[in-house]
């Protein structure tokens, strides 16, 4: 279909891709996997001729007889959307908010085929139905903001395949989606390839997704393809060390010994949390939406408790209530016997026993403060800075593997992984008994994630910490928690020891979740189990 030959790309002088050669076979699924920053998206954009401002490409991208890189812009326009379609990672912003979904899909047809608007809309209706958005439930005059993330990604797919292109490029199509929606989208893509003879270039950072989808896989590191081959042979052989390291990290199990005591630390008793929705008209009463509906559970000292659920199930609302950021509308939450109620005037003694680590390493720190002041902020709770503040900060940083000299530097000088380590140091500074980890590793690359999980396991043993581990990623939760709770639309639908829940789920929703999570086939990893 398209054969890349020594494709190299530099943007503003920095070399992003160097001598990438890849043959995308027609009618087949080619996987391109690598960590963020490895250049996989740039490869796709180069093929589409959509490289950003100020970049230069060399080498060839043979399509039938012509070299795509050499084609003039007019010919590229005729090619894009017609013979090569592309979808992107962020469905929420990929559609023009001011145009209906019908118009946007029909536009691809009208741009290339000079068809009348009526014909184009008819074809659009069929393609939308084909991608799972039948016109009766999703009329063509709907606007993007009225659809969920998954549904919008389906519209993007409909747009990309409206003219039955020979190649569909999917750049991290499901990374921003929930695991169940991801499974459906991947099935849809596989169906399109099978039924319409389309070839698919699937770009992702998730080895499990690639293992389940691709016929041929290429592994990229820092702008180079380090290894490529048929999927099963590649997983079995893993000739290149980087591939092995990548594989080991994604299935990493931190060594931890459960050391949960039986004394209760955090008790959530029939917690209820409502949101006021927009009021109808100036005088209309604001509507109520129940996000957390009577949740109860107990977290024991030293225990790792997981809370799993898809976005919108209410787990972050529950977390904010536990942290005392939002008031409860019913029930109560007690930490070590003392009740938590929202607002800054919550007694400092309770707050000192609980700390939090957030998801986004880049949003968790005030860019204008030095690391020392960032880590020492929780001292605000122990009314006044302790005399030995600097060396307590140094000890905390050392504890998380950051050299104490970092104290006087600013946060923008650190990588994502280092920032999460500093966030953990901040959480440790007041020797809390419970740390709430709200999607703490979701934003990290798989190898960095493995290191952080090891760190958390070590700290738990050293300080006897209890963890409340909140995540949408089942495989991570499975590897780090003693007990797990599955949450759906505001309620805990299942609870129990992690291994039993994962091995034999009782609730249907849990079953669906586990089935939807892509995993690398066990027998492929026979020879070199980490």
């Amino acid at each position, binding site marked *: 279909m398209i054969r890349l030959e020594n494709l190299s790309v530099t943007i503003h002088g920095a070399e992003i891709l160097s001598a990438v050669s890849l043959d995308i076979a027609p009618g087949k699924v080619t996987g391109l996997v690598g960590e963020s920053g490895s250049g996989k998206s740039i490869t796709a954009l180069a093929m589409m001729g959509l490289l950003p401002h100020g970049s230069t490409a060399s080498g060839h991208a043979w399509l039938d007889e012509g070299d795509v890189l050499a084609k003039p812009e007019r010919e590229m326009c005729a090619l894009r959307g017609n013979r090569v379609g592309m979808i992107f990672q962020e469905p929420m912003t990929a559609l023009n908010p001011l145009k209906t979904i019908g118009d946007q899909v029909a536009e691809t047809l009208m741009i290339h085929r000079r068809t009348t608007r009526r014909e184009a809309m008819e074809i659009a209706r069929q393609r939308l139905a084909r991608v799972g958005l039948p016109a009766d439930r999703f009329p063509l005059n709907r606007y993007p903001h009225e659809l969920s993330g998954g549904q919008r990604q389906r519209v993007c797919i409909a747009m990309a395949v409206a003219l039955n292109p020979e190649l569909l490029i999917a750049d991290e199509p499901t990374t921003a989606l929930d695991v169940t929606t991801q499974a459906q989208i991947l099935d849809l893509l596989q169906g399109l390839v099978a039924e319409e003879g389309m070839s698919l270039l699937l770009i992702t950072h998730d080895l499990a997704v690639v293992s389940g989808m691709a016929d041929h896989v290429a592994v990229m590191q820092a702008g180079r393809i380090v290894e490529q081959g048929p999927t099963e042979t590649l997983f079995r052989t893993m000739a290149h060390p980087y591939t092995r390291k990548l594989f080991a990290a994604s299935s990493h199990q931190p060594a931890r010994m459960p050391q949960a005591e039986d004394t209760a630390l955090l008790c959530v008793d029939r917690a209820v949390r409502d949101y006021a929705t927009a009021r109808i008209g100036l005088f209309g009463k604001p509507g109520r939406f129940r996000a957390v509906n009577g949740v109860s559970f107990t977290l024991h000292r030293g225990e790792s408790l997981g809370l799993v659920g898809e976005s919108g199930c209410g787990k972050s609302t529950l977390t904010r209530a536990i942290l005392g950021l939002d008031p409860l509308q019913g029930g109560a939450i007690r930490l070590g016997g003392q009740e938590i109620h929202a607002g800054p005037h919550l007694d400092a003694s309770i707050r000192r026993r*609980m*700390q939090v680590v*957030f998801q986004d390493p880049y949003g968790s720190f005030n860019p204008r403060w030095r690391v020392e002041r960032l880590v020492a902020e*929780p001292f605000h709770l122990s009314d006044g800075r302790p005399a030995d503040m600097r060396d307590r900060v140094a000890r905390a940083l050392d504890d998380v593997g950051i050299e104490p000299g970092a104290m006087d530097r600013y946060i923008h000088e650190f990588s994502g992984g280092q920032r999460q380590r500093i966030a953990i140091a901040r959480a440790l500074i007041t020797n809390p008994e419970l740390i709430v980890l709200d999607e703490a590793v979701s934003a990290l690359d798989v190898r960095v994630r493995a290191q952080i999980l090891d760190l958390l396991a070590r700290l738990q043993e050293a300080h006897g910490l209890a963890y409340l581990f909140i995540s949408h990623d089942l495989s991570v939760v499975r590897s780090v928690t003693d007990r797990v709770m599955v949450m759906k639309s505001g309620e805990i639908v299942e609870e129990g020891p992690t291994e039993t829940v994962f091995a034999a789920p009782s609730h249907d929703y849990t079953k669906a979740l586990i089935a939807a999570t892509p995993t690398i086939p066990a027998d492929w990893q026979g020879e070199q189990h980490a």
Partner: protein
Amino acid sequence: MRPGAQLWIGAGLSAVFLLAALLSFAWTPHDVTALNIADKLKPMSATYPLGTDHFGRDILSMLMVGARTSIAVALVAVGIGVGLGVPLGLLAAANRGSLLDEVVMRGNDLIFAFPSLVIAILITAVFGPSALNAILAIGIFNVPVFARVTRGSALSLWTLDYVLAARVAGKGRLRISVEHILPNITNLLIVQGTIQFSLGILAEAALSYVGLGAQPPTPSWGRMLAEAQTMIYTNPALAILPGLAIVAMVLGLNLMGDGLRDLLDPRVRRARG
């Protein structure tokens, strides 16, 4: 123009006027308060580098002292805007959706609804024309601008994790506003400040053009323009020079504002690249 170039040209131009204003405290080629009718309407010469006006006063000295008036009025007016507007904006953002937020926002819309020049004229009619009243009149209309800019940018910061972390660390809304929010919007306020400063210069010129700004004998560019207007056919320089001074200063400030925004706002720098 690279952002740097805009910044330096702008800063250079503004500095020229700032220096002229500061210098005028100590020395001006001629005393602006002394009139000698005999030397009226002289063309440019050695003794009078830019000529003299209809009272025989040296135009260069008038422009220097005029710069002092304009800068003082515009600076204090921006001060009022920041002093009142920023805290209001921070409070409104801290208590989003509360009554205070609604009152601040409605108050802003109301002040914006008033035609600024008409209100300025009213204020000077009530309290009598003077530089102080011009400052008041211009200052009032700076408050909603700063309140709106502060509230807007503060709102987006309140959603960030480090503010949540601070709340988890038990800090109150006021303390968070001062320690976390304010430092991170100062860049924006500096840029907005330069723009409001240049608008202040224009507003002071307009007010003194209709005779409501600084009163004689303190010179002001706007009034020089008004007095020179009738002689524009016989001595055009009289009217053109103060106009050029206003344009140059405001241009300088705006270029500096643009340069600062590009320099301080990483997002713009990335978009440019």
